[in-house]
């Protein structure tokens, strides 16, 4: 279960990718950006499973990568990412890159020293969606798993082998010797994803970003992989940022759920709360679109309360970015509508640790960004 100790703090993170401009744009001096992430704030505590959900293209993967500093710092438009490393890690960062240390935290994008960066690389890990692409096809499993150890200076061959064994056992690829000398193409998708998890695990990280780790797998093996991931939290109290677009799954595994729309978090709160009592019109639409678990109701045509198409992340609508698709806007009062059109809503508190970015809930209280 999550502790109250904060492990990761993201404040107003913006990731903008510049778009190749046409000549006319160059002449007009106009710069265009894909605003993939456009002001995102959240915190993750030690041992917490934090879910990020939303439509395809809303910026989930970009957020995940940005947190891990896998995005070129040139593209980070604004905001900070603070990560709290282990005590020895903090000491190393302090000695090589004191400018990046803020209290117990390290400002991820201020780290410039390679050795300090290595501390972050060791303690923050990632599991990608695609189990076919994320393993180097030319390496044997053993080489793939040894690679992080070699990079992080584990010189002793026996020690490395031992840790490879342990990691393979932890992801239930047993007996390890049977898998170690295979190439990725000799494994099934589920087995490959386990190798990817083992690779993330082998450096004993305290934080893992899992980017849709099961969406490309057969339904039958998803449960096993999820189980392995959850057991990591229980055993090592690793925090996991779980990216998904499957809300039913999110409810099942997360502590906190954040819903993203077009680069921004529109609703965030305890998973059951967000799913059982959704507040934001977009969340409501998403939940209405979850397939009905009850077979008797399957054939009933349900109305999904949303309209239109996802706008491009280059031309984000002014005011509330959801307005062109919002059905609540149509029936809202005149005051709210004028707010919707003119100003971006902040995050408004609607319950215990539950915040929504919608003017419908912002009338009374003042905008109150989550700490």
């Amino acid at each position, binding site marked *: 279960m999550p502790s109250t100790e904060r492990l990761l703090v993201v404040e107003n993170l913006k990731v903008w990718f510049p778009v190749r401009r046409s000549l006319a744009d160059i002449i007009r001096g106009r710069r265009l950006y894909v605003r993939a992430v456009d002001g995102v704030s959240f915190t993750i505590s030690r041992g917490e499973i934090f879910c990020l959900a939303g439509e395809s293209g809303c910026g989930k993967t970009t957020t995940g990568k940005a947190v891990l500093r*896998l995005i070129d710092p*040139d593209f980070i438009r604004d905001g900070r990412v603070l990560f709290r490393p282990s005590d020895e890690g903090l000491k190393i960062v302090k000695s090589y890159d004191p400018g990046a240390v803020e209290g117990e935290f390290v400002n991820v994008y201020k780290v410039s020293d390679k050795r300090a*960066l290595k501390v972050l*690389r060791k303690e923050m890990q*990632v599991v990608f969606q695609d189990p076919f*692409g*994320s393993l180097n096809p030319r390496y044997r499993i053993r080489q793939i798993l040894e*690679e*992080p150890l070699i*990079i992080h200076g584990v010189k002793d061959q026996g020690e490395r082998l031992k840790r490879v064994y342990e990691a393979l056992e932890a992801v239930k690829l047993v007996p390890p010797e049977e898998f170690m000398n295979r190439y990725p193409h000799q494994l099934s998708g589920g087995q490959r994803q386990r190798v990817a998890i083992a690779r993330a695990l082998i450096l004993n990280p305290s934080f893992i970003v899992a980017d849709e780790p099961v969406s490309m797998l057969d339904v039958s093996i998803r449960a096993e992989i999820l189980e392995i991931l959850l057991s990591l939290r229980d055993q090592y109290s690793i925090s996991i940022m779980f990216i998904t677009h499957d809300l039913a799954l999110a409810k099942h595994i997360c502590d906190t759920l954040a819903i993203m729309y077009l680069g921004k978090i529109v609703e965030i709160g305890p998973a059951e709360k967000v799913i059982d009592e959704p507040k934001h019109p977009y969340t409501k639409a998403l939940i209405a679109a979850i397939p009905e678990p009850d077979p008797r109701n399957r054939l009933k045509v349900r109305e999904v309360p949303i309209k239109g198409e996802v706008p491009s992340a280059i031309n984000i609508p002014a005011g509330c970015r959801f307005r062109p698709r919002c059905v609540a806007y149509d029936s809202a009062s005149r005051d709210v509508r004028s707010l919707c059109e003119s100003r971006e809503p902040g995050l408004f508190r609607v319950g215990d640790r539950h915040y929504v970015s919608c003017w419908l809930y912002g009338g009374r209280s003042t905008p109150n960004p989550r700490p």
Partner: protein
Amino acid sequence: MSAAEILREIWRCWTGRIALILLIIQLCLAVWVVVSTDYAALSRKYLDETAWLGEYPRAVPPCWAVPHHADIIQLKLNTSTMKPEIVEKRQVGRYTRYVVKWSYQFEYKGHALPSDTLLLLVVKRLPDLKAYKLEVKLLRPDNSTVAILAKTPITKEYVVVVGIGGAKGKPKPVALNTLPSDDPVYRSIVDSVSPLIGDEKLLTELGPGKLLWAGRGGKALLGTYEISVVASFYVKGQPSSDTNLSKYTSVYLEMQTLGNCYGLMGTDSVGRPIELGILIGLPWSFVISFYVTFLTTMIGGFYGILAAFASGWRAELLMRIADTVYSIPLLPILIVVVIVTRSYSIWLILTTMVALLWVGPVVVVRSMALQIKSQPYIEAAKAIGASNARILFRYVLPQILPYLVALMVLGIPDPIIIEAALAFLGLSDPTVPTWGKMLEWAWKEHAVLNGWWWSFLFPGLALTVFCATFLMLGRALEPIVAPKLKSR
């Protein structure tokens, strides 16, 4: 994929099999030439036009292309070891006049004329002989007589009458057809054959070296020939019964017919065997093509990867530079470089080629590297803290390397063909025997006009086979090593 697996894959398709066999043959030949001969001396000799006089027939076709072969006659007559026939011995005043004849009979059996005849005639005489005259005649099967040397006074003690090289060194025989047409030997032979042949055009066409053996219509005369050397002179004193005349004079005559064909591929206009030239050119073909393609693919490949991993204006700049170099036309620049620096050094030529050809692989390699770069496992490598260099050398390069090898193999023909073009313009290294240079020689000697097809056909074919080997190999290799690249 391991090298053995790749080889097996190549062997599976028939073009690959042919290419591999041809490659092995050519490699073995090249190694054999370099190892088993004094390669440097041999190529120096091959490049020296004057070194081949009399060694082989000049401008003759390969033997398999000639229906009738000429007879190879080789005579070495030294009168001091021969029994003379004393034609005349009489006293004239205080002197005795001698007319002495040495003769030798031989058969000419070939049904074709030789391409030329080599002749060496050296005379030694005592200084106190008077009015020494020498005559060399050829009595032919049709009973006609050809005067090779009309009665000629010899005044010095030692004279090379026909041949190259004089007082110093050993004299060498001369090919009769290379004599100028006003040479007495030339005139004498042509004049004595002309009533038989009749046709004035045929006379100049065949030349004395062939006319010696030619009958009516320019056909070869078969049968018994007799060559005779007749010396006449006066010796002070009474005629004696002494038959040992070699104390007065001795004549050395060497005669050799050059065949009307040579070997597998004939000879060029100065008598160099074409097959030898092809063998000598082979190692250089390997050197030229491998030097250039190895450097260009390595530089271009590395540059392409660099351009893929650079970002922003750096990537833009790198591609602009490559684009600019790509647009520089190669041959004109090469011509200017060679002409202007007056350095015909092969290394200058090859290095200039490298300087302009390295852009070849850049675009393809860059797009490949971009594709690899976007693979999730590269992102994963970054996430575990792999440095850029490590990603480049351990992840990207091993993927691209096999493809670079295929590119290299496919690029082998270019430098050879370009070098040949330069050679054809006369701009090649004078110390390097290449096939292109053989083609240039053939062209300059009007081989096409003269119908000496062997002297340009075979070097060109050698070039074609060499290039085609690598193209076939490359085409067999490409689908094996190239990951499927979507264009655009």
